[in-house]
């Protein structure tokens, strides 16, 4: 699996990408199709554009922190 870094991607481009994946943004946070802020399923933190991590397979969007990643890998150990 290849990693695509979002570090140098302008926010407008990130938002366009999110829209292609069925999401949106208010410029700060990631929003779902109903306009609600997406929450990290493992920490319940609201996911921001500057800290988002997008896994394929049902498009899981997480906050970029070790706990969320470890929890995801426990659920999907074969992702890498």
């Amino acid at each position, binding site marked *: 699996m*290849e990693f*695509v870094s979002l570090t140098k991607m302008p926010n407008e481009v990130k938002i366009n990408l999110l829209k*292609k994946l069925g999401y949106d943004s208010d410029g700060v946070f990631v929003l779902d199709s109903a306009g609600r802020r997406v929450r990290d399923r493992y920490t319940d933190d609201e996911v921001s554009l500057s800290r988002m*991590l*997008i896994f394929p397979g049902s498009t899981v969007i997480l906050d970029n922190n070790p*706990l969320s*990643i*470890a929890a995801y*890998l426990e659920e999907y150990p074969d992702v890498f």
Partner: protein
Amino acid sequence: MIKAASEGATKGFLDWTEEKLSDLARGFESRDLLFIEDRQTIDLVKEQRKKPEWELAKKYIRDRDLRIQIQMGLALRRLESNPPKLKELRDKIYKKYQSPGLHIAEIVQTGIFVKYIGLLLGQTLDETELVEKLNALLKENEKYVVFIKTQDDAYRKTQEIVARLRANLPPALVVFSSGTAIDVSLEIVKSALTQIEGYHQEIQVDKDNSEPERVKLYNFLLRTELRQNSI
């Protein structure tokens, strides 16, 4: 002409972006791509999952939350040289798992967990018993682990340790301290051992990876009958 050129440049940028984004979206849907702000965090987690300590732990610990807490302990150890990231992760662990989960992560971070495995390997009859005792160490860690800080009241901590030993009769209780807390820790254990029978101490010392001039002290209070009966 300038307007046309700028329109052309803008359109060109938008076309490139649109095409590139469509390629990325297709790559994502085919599960070839993962989007991340930076790789450092993923690499940190992957690095801990390769460690022999994790390989050993995952063999005996099946509970998903315990497994995550163990990995967070390893990550905390790795982040000791980065105080802001360390605090951020500690806060996340506490938010999700509260004090019990944070204590488990600290037990792994400080090296207590792996030392306890070594202790149990020589005292258990089979793997079933080992699994049971390791899970008990983590889930009921207040019975088996005491952390001493420099500012702790020596008398109160002594009484706490004596009470725990009398109430639970654990095969081993680990009293952990580091740096300037070591002196008070030794005083506490010495005093505790004068008040309770059937236990002796064994000490291990490690260097602190984040501060090499600072040491970590693991004071194992072991049930004497186990020493006599151990293999």
